């Protein structure tokens, strides 16, 4: 099974990368309301692997990040 953990800067926290992307696109004439830069961790795993545990225990810092898990 293929799984992806999508990690984003938490709502309300300033994200300088997202701001830079927004400034670039705005300067090119696009009407952008907001932009955020996060990260994706993609893994091939078998069904026994607890993805939520991996995310919470090892990969996501809940103070500054939010995440969601996608499964294929």
């Amino acid at each position, binding site marked *: 099974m293929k799984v992806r953990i999508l990690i984003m800067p938490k709502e309300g926290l300033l*994200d300088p990368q997202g701001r830079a992307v927004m400034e670039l696109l705005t300067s090119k004439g696009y009407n952008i309301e907001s932009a955020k830069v996060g990260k994706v961790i993609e893994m091939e795993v078998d069904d026994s692997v607890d993805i939520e545990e991996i995310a919470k225990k090892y*990969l996501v810092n809940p103070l*500054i990040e939010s995440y969601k898990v996608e499964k294929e």
Partner: protein
Amino acid sequence: MKFGVCVFPGSNCDYDTYYVIRDVLERDVRFIYHNETNIKDIDILILPGGFSFGDYVRPGLLASKTALMDAVIDFAHKGGIVLGICNGFQILTEAGLLPGALLPNVNGRFICKDVYLRIETKSRILTNKLKRGDVLRLPIAHHDGRYYVDDKTLKDMEENDQIIFRYADKEGNTDNGSNPNGSVSNIAGICNKEGNVFGMMPHPERASEDVLGNHDGLMLWYSLIS
């Protein structure tokens, strides 16, 4: 008294720190590698600056999950003194030994310059040769130094005397103009509630000899060994 300097793949201030302890302080010191677990001979642990594990995923995250850090966490819980400098501070927050997190600088850039720090704590091991309100000049060199913590925890930290340094100007005023990276409340260094685990973004090991043009960092090392 024996110091240990933790070395992770990508640490790059390890030798500077080792040098200051051995040659300037003239104290016993050894390197401790990331896969070591026996640190029983150590009295004071330093987590040096650098880019451990390439800062992959988040600065400090991967180092915080190593076998050595399990031993460091145990050491800290038993009251051992731990100081994390720069990347070491990031590792300590990721390990849960210190509150808060270090986010990318507000201007999106790597900042390398001298800053002024005002001593905030009334009495902590790291600053017992200094007094509240004293100002030090130390270098910073980081991309992810924006200290973040929620309002409630910040209030608790202030009440518990856990704020060690704030970014200030030469006269000790802590305003927005003296905040280099957007840290909450100008915070540059903190400790845990118990006062045995310290984290700071500035680099005292780069300012501990006159030949380097600045010895303000020495006061912190002398405090630690006093």
